[in-house]
């Protein structure tokens, strides 16, 4: 994966498969602590302590199509190689919280990349799931949620291509405003 936003898209698919109805994604750039913190929280089926212990192992997967599961190991590696941290908290029946911390200015930190595409796909292609996305830079933040969008849309589906195009632009412009255009 060349961008952290691709890892986020990938990890969020686990939440989708866990039958979550609410998925909250946050990306916080904290220049004062020189940290970038990414969290993906869901209310899906959760995992047993044993599954949590296994999930960071590339040779563990719940799929039957093949024998490797690389999503979580990729994300963990991306965090650890920048002097960061990685943790998964999960409870069966309650949900899962994935948290990755990166050295914000570390030379090996991959760029966040196209987060607007990631959120546009997640929100547009999973109409039955409520998503929220918060992007924070220092003290300032931008938040968008499917509930907020559906209220305006009043029955027009989020997966209408024209609506997804709007969403992509809306998220990108608001993020650029906070980050100064460089992600």
């Amino acid at each position, binding site marked *: 994966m060349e961008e952290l936003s691709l890892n986020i*898209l990938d990890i969020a698919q686990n939440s989708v498969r866990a039958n979550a109805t609410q998925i909250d994604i946050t990306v916080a750039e904290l220049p004062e602590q020189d940290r970038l913190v990414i969290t993906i929280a869901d209310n899906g089926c959760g995992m047993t302590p044993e599954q949590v212990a296994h999930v960071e192992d590339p040779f563990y997967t719940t799929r039957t199509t093949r024998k490797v599961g690389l999503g979580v190991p990729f994300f963990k590696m991306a965090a650890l190689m920048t002097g960061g941290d990685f943790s998964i908290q999960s409870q069966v029946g309650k949900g899962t919280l994935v948290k990755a911390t990166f050295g914000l200015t570390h030379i090996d930190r991959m760029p966040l990349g196209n987060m607007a595409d990631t959120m546009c796909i997640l929100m547009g292609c999973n109409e039955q799931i409520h998503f929220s996305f918060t992007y924070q830079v220092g003290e300032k933040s931008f938040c968008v949620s499917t509930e907020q969008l559906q209220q305006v849309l009043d029955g027009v589906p989020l*997966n209408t*291509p024209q609506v997804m195009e709007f969403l992509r632009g809306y998220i990108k412009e608001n993020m650029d405003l906070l980050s100064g255009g460089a992600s």
Partner: protein
Amino acid sequence: MKSLAELQALRDSMKDKIGVRDDAEGNIRVVVGMATCGIAAGARPVLAAFTEEVSKRNLQNVTIAQTGCIGICQYEPVVEVYEPGKEKVTYVKMTPEMAVKVVNDHLVNGNVVTEYTIGAKTL
């Protein structure tokens, strides 16, 4: 600067077409594989190219969706096109440029882009 007020205007322009979109026979479903294998191979820009082109051409009868691992990871990005009454078409090793051609040739004009399909590729 895009605002939610703009979304409201978009909603009003779409609203009268919704009924048509849902019931229309010939509603085409485009499904992009979006698991680790697909994402790493470049599925996200492919899906984005589909929504962009469909939106640009203002097509009303196309739904774009994602799915998990289809099971042929070495062919990712994989895109499946479902049309009522027709056999499923599976496109493999897709790029955003190929996606634009699939929208124009297949979705708009009904001509399957045979050279992009799984049957045409040998590995």
